[in-house]
């Protein structure tokens, strides 16, 4: 657990002072601030306390958008698009393949069956899904650390993963 950087959070909150819909922007920046790219309970509670926005509302917003994560992410994020176009072009197979090569098993207890959020034991990779990236013409697409890769195949994915692994654990 990393310590909450309240000074940085204060700055974020001040930046959007008085702006309509500020909660989304604050949460977005707060997530970026975190070393593990997620919103910790202490971050949520701090934002609520400082802005006066009820915790129930914040939780509602955070759970609505796939973009927000309530669990720490690994050093590298992999997001598989599970939209209709990607699905017809084999995204389920890509997802299963990634689970296999990263040695990830579905968490049965999570209850949110349609949402995938799995992190490798060594904390190097987090595998997620998204409803649609809007890049349907390039289906199937997979996003790795912010870059969208189009027309992916198992071979292409293996190459990308191996590349990251070769570069070492701590470099992004």
């Amino acid at each position, binding site marked *: 657990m990393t310590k909450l950087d309240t000074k940085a959070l204060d700055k974020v909150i001040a930046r959007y002072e008085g702006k309509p819909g500020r909660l989304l922007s604050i949460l977005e920046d707060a997530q970026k601030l975190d070393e593990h790219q997620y919103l910790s309970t202490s971050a949520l509670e701090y934002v609520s306390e400082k802005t006066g926005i009820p915790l129930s509302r914040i939780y509602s917003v955070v759970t*609505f958008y796939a973009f927000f994560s309530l669990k720490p992410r690994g050093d590298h994020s992999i997001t598989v698009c599970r939209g209709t176009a990607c699905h017809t072009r084999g995204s389920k197979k890509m997802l299963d393949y990634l689970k296999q090569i990263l040695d990830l098993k579905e968490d049965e207890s999570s209850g949110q069956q349609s949402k995938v959020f799995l992190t490798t034991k060594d904390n190097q990779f987090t595998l997620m899904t998204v409803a649609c990236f809007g890049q349907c013409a390039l289906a199937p697409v997979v996003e790795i650390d912010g870059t969208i890769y189009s027309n992916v195949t198992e071979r292409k994915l293996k190459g990308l993963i191996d590349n990251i692994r070769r570069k070492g654990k701590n470099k992004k």
Partner: protein
Amino acid sequence: MADKLFQVKIDGKNYEIAAGTSILKACQDIGIAIPTLCYLEGVSEAAACSLCLVEIKGVKPLMRACVTKVRDGMEVNTFSARVNKARKVNMELLLAGHPKDCFVCDRNQDCELRRMAFEMGIREVRFPKVTTLETEVDISSPSIIRDPNKCILCRRCVSVCSAIQAVHAIDAVGRGKQTKISTYGDKGLGHVACINCGQCLLVCPTGALTEQTKVSDIWRALTDPKKIVMVETAPAVRAAIGEEFGLEPGTLATGKMVAALRRLGFNKVFDTQFSADLTILEEGHELIERIKNKGVLPLITSCSPGWIKFAEHFYPGILKNLSTCKSPQQMFGAIAKTYYAEKMKVDPRDIVVVSIMPCVAKKFEADRPEMDSAFHYWKDTLKLKPEDHFKDVDFVLTTREAGRMVREAGIDFVHLPDEDFDAPLGVSTGAAVIFGATGGVMEAALRTAYEVLTGNPLPKIDFESVRGLKGIKTAEVDINGMKVKIAVAHSLGHARVLLDEIKEGRSPYAFIEIMTCPGGCIGGGGQPLPTNTVVRQKRIDAIYREDKNKQLRKSHENPAVLALYNEFLGKPLGEKSHHLLHTTYVKR
């Protein structure tokens, strides 16, 4: 804007309707019933259930009547084959995911979903249940049970919790078919800043929100020959319990209620109004003390347990303003197991105190760890061990649960003769009756404070300025030339206005009454369904009728309370009062 009238044609007839009116409201006003399960006037406009679809000439899709405002020249068709089909499909979709165990559902007789489906002519549900959701029932709260399986996501509970109560304990969580109503972090109502008011429960159209019940434990106590089971009834219960048996809202059922409780097997039928009078003596003197000794003002009433928890969560800085008086429910328990036990020479461990309340927060209050004054009172005399521990109030029933027990016992409530409460803990004045309505505690306190401070009888006993359903009521009372400013708020959204004034150091008041629920206790979360503005007003009228009918209408004239001071307590705010009748609060 409000005065501007639009020409609107509804179902072929011409009407003049004020601009800004929704189609749904306009139709309700002219006697056209449009089905809805989410819209509640003044509370919720979530547009979630999609049952209120209507056709508008020149508009292609069907529109939701609840959120579509009338326009000049608009032509609305509220019922056609197309409308009927679409509404039915939407209803069937709501029912597809809903459990079909209506037989054993608490809301069997007053489920809006069940009734509306029937009225819409639904006789089959063509769609299968698609289970995707966690289905764990939230039983973490001592007051409220939340069953997400029965939830149709109408969001009325969310609206009432945020817009009326300003508590924000719940909201929609997740998205799409994963959506559910939940608390922050899915912690459960018992683990977040929920104040247990149960207003959510009153607006829920299904059985998704119900009270925690211990009815079976009470049946067991009633059949245990060793136990002396006594019941205390809150003022607001007598003005509403008749509704449980089909009587008109506003029917006073005091005598029948007493008769029914006696037939259920309670050994003593007592009245929370006795301890309401006692509360006034303690709280009235507390007010006088604080005014005389320049103590913390404004003093705020402490009868309403939802409000207390609200203050503990959201306004910890003003806890010193709260009266230290326990609520009448808790004063009753403490007195029953000390004074009355001594008087009757019975072991307090054999006494079971059951209260009937218009409230679900009272269940939480009775469970508060500090509410065991009688145990501490007897600890040394009876050499009590920790395992002997008992609470001042053992069980709390809502008005609804009391109705359920009476029905279960096969008692014909409507045809019962009127009976009187037992003495001495069943003796009360009109000042205690009005505790049930917003402004009542204030008025009762003023009746006593005025006479104690001036030594003269009140010229006019009714303080009309603090009565009624206005959100915040203020007045100035002249007591021997001293001007005392007072304020009354009901529902916590309104209370926040007065509390923020205190927080910012600009509150002009000496005394404030705060009630958690709209209308006061008569509109509490434990009251019969439906509880709406019309019903609330009728119950309030009944409360003031009862007050008028009472021979004694001032708490300090209650002979049983005076005897209690003579024989046991000594004087208001005395040593014994301090231990038994006063309490402390915690920051949460």
